[in-house]
């Protein structure tokens, strides 16, 4: 690793890492992005192409870096038909265009199903995570062993800063969400367990079969088959059956989880999940006659993501906190995305997400083409980041999120850049008024989304 990158990523262990003003980091961050660019331009084909198109030979400014960012959609630019046809040779070649290290196409092409392909890649040191793709196609994000190791350190450090909880292997962890069974989630899960789980107990296993990449992409593949007109009615019926079984498992998991958490109520707990799942378990716990008074006041919580379109009562947060006896200071929230390998923990005093020094925030206009000025004040626009920690793929990514970022100090005392807790996806904002006679077969596919 190069000098500036090394210097910034090493701050993951530094206590005062969110206190460094953006202006003070400017030079080091630009230098580090340039180091990354120099290494990667000969390694990642898509970055080399982008640099050629933009005429960039060095990163000397934030503007230069913007021209080298890859949109989050770059990781879904593979044709879905290759998934359906199990063309692992082609998909591997595609993966190679966004990978730092050369994908051993020949060693993985003879895979059977997609999960098999993912496993073979992992055996060769290529860890592919797959986004759930709420609107269809899944992003395929490749990472290296070094990235997996980094996630383990970073996730726990960010949690500890944001929640004020010092990991001491003295809690019982209750995950209350079905987790995608992908390398990155497994790595961070392992790290949380090692840091926090009381070794006298088994970690609670959420009673829903893990969602593998194959499970995630099955729907995508079927959707495409319906659009192409090749899906047979029995194919759709079989998928509906699997979906119903999954839903049933999710519904039943609520009761099982509530029973288990009540049985463990005398221990110090750490609960995690998405709001919808947490709320449902909390409701079941209340129905059993338990609430805050029955749980330890030192319990902590980690909620990932927003509401994800779930519809809950207005007081869902309070309801969850009050059920599990969570004090506000032990509630941890984090802003991140699959494309990044670093999180931005939310502070207690200001309620804002803090950008660490090894992540360069770049705020763009809505179209993602132009950098907005990054001086004093709060700016609203499209979030882009350069995660200097990333090894296995390019760290510069343009997200689909609309954020408000402020480069002034936060109420919590941190002087680094921070993001307001009102993040939305651009995709959720538009699309309400689009009418035209030209359109695609997507409009003719019902029910598989």
């Amino acid at each position, binding site marked *: 690793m190069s000098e500036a990158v090394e210097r910034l990523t090493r701050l993951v262990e530094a206590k005062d890492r969110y206190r460094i003003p953006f202006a003070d980091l400017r030079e080091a961050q630009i230098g580090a992005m340039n180091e990354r660019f120099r290494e990667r331009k000969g390694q990642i084909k898509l970055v080399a192409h982008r640099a050629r198109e933009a005429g960039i030979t060095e990163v000397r400014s934030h503007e230069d870096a913007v021209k080298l960012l890859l949109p989050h959609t770059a990781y879904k*630019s593979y044709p879905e*038909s290759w998934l359906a046809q199990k063309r692992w040779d082609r998909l591997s070649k595609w993966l190679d*265009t966004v990978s730092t290290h050369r994908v051993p196409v020949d060693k993985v092409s003879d895979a059977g199903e997609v999960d098999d392909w993912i496993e073979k890649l992992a055996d060769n040191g290529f860890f592919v995570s797959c986004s759930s793709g709420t609107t269809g196609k899944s992003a395929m994000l490749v990472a290296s062993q070094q990235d997996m190791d980094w996630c383990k350190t970073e996730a726990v450090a960010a949690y500890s800063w944001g929640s004020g909880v010092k990991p001491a292997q003295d809690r019982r962890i209750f995950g209350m969400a079905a987790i995608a069974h992908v390398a990155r989630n497994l790595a961070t899960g392992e790290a949380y367990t090692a840091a926090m789980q009381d070794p006298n107990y088994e970690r609670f296993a959420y009673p829903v079969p893990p969602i593998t990449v194959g499970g995630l992409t099955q729907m995508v593949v079927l959707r495409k088959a319906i659009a192409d*007109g090749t899906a047979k009615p029995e194919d759709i019926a079989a998928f509906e059956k699997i979906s119903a079984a999954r839903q049933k498992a999710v519904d039943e998991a609520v009761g099982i989880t509530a029973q288990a958490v009540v049985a463990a109520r005398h221990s110090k707990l750490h609960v995690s999940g998405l709001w919808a799942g947490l709320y449902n378990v909390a409701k079941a716990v209340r129905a059993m006659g338990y609430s805050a008074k029955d749980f330890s006041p030192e319990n902590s919580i980690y909620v990932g993501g927003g509401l994800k379109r779930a519809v809950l009562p207005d007081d869902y947060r309070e309801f969850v906190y009050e059920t599990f006896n969570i004090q506000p200071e032990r509630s941890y929230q984090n802003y991140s995305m699959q494309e990044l390998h670093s999180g931005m923990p939310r502070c207690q005093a200001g309620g804002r997400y803090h950008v660490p020094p090894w992540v360069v925030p770049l705020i763009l206009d809505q179209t993602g083409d*132009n950098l907005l000025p990054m001086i004093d004040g709060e700016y609203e626009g499209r979030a882009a980041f350069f995660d200097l920690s990333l090894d296995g793929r390019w760290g510069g990514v343009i997200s689909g999120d609309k954020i408000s970022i402020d480069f002034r100090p936060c109420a919590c005392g941190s002087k680094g850049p921070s993001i307001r807790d009102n993040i939305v996806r651009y995709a959720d904002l538009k699309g309400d*008024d689009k*009418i*035209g*006679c030209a*359109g695609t077969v997507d409009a003719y596919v019902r029910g598989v989304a």
Partner: protein
Amino acid sequence: MNSVADLKKDAASDATAAIPAAFFARGELIEGNDAIHRSRDLGVNFATPRIDLNRIVHPRTEVPPLLNVPLAEIIDFLVETGQRITDPNNLFVQSCFDRMCATHILPRGVLENQIKGAAAYLDRRLLNTVVEQNFANPRALDEWVPHQDYTGRRSFVRAFAPRLVHVLPGNSPGVAVKSIAQGAMVKAINLFKMSSSDPFTTVAILRTMADIDPNHAIVKSMSAVYWRGGDDSVERVLYRPQYFDKIVAWGGGDAINNVIKYLGPGFQLVSFDPKTSISMVGKEAFASEETLDIAADLGSADVMILNQEACVASRFIYVEGDHTQADHFCERLHERIVERAAASGDTRPLDMELREQIETMMMMDDEYRVWGRTDGRGCVIRSDEPVEFHPINKTANVVCVPSLDEAMRYVNVATQTVGFYPFDRMADYRDRLASGGAQRIVHLGEAGPSAIGNPHDAMYPLHRFVHWMVHEDGCAA
């Protein structure tokens, strides 16, 4: 907040800076700055009056104003409207162009031609032909047509004037002219829901009509307003069989999903579906340099209809040949697309997601070949299977197939027009194309024009618009 984007927004959110877009309610112009909206594509603000819902719904206790106006008189009125639309002194239309340039993605010249082209639809002979093609007996529009079946049972049938909501598309302003004419010819009470990229054209045409005769029944039968598609506060109120018989809607996705939830007995959908058009180029194109040039030129004409914003514009071109042949075709096709794009003055760059997908294909050069760049000046991609994105904004996907028979599996329920070369092979393919879901097969290069009054979207629309009313009159003695 003080981002550049916000500064622009702040300036524009001032009502004085927003472009005024008036409404039209059953013959009357309504102006006002009660609501500020944002246009779909360019994010420009426009100001509209508040919608007075009572004024745009015609009570069922009153028969439609046009019911007993003879069709011939309606057509006379439409013909005069057409002449006034093209009159350069028509201030309504001129100011409409000025405003539309701010909200629409297409260049002014293309928009002007669109509306002028649409005005040509308001031709007496043409309109008469449309009616004759749509109705076995057009007299049913003007009178109760007597009929007696073979058992001796007598009746009268009337193509009764319906109550229609038209949800207009945003991509093609010429549709407004056609929709007004069609609504008038079936003597309907019409409510036009305008789109955010064009909240101007419909009202400009209706004002032109009111200028001819403000009290004519045709003018009293027309309303045009804007609300944001999916706005429950309007749609939950209006979309009811007590107020309208049918909703005539263009498009798919959210636009149609919003409408579908209101359908039910007595409130039906006539949908002009979102469509993708394609081309088929047979091996005969490679007979000589000359035929190759012809096929590429015709192909490019179909790709570039309304700069590829229209549903009839071709997006996928299936070429019967090997890679070398297809590459020759691509090269020439690309040249022609670039020429046509340059001539129209359209330099809109591709959007980020499309750009990304095409650039990835440039990397995968053993699978794909790309002519041109993603700069909006025209781009052609050659592949062995159709690409999975929607080629738009001067982008053509040439798909290499060993035989056009192989291309039949790519025809689907979203396929509208299939441009074909050579023309003498069309009959061999039309049954399979129809079975796959396609709606039109045309000579390559002629995706735009169609025989007057022919079906659209696999139906005779005017025939579907009317309320077929029966008067049973007992048995003959």
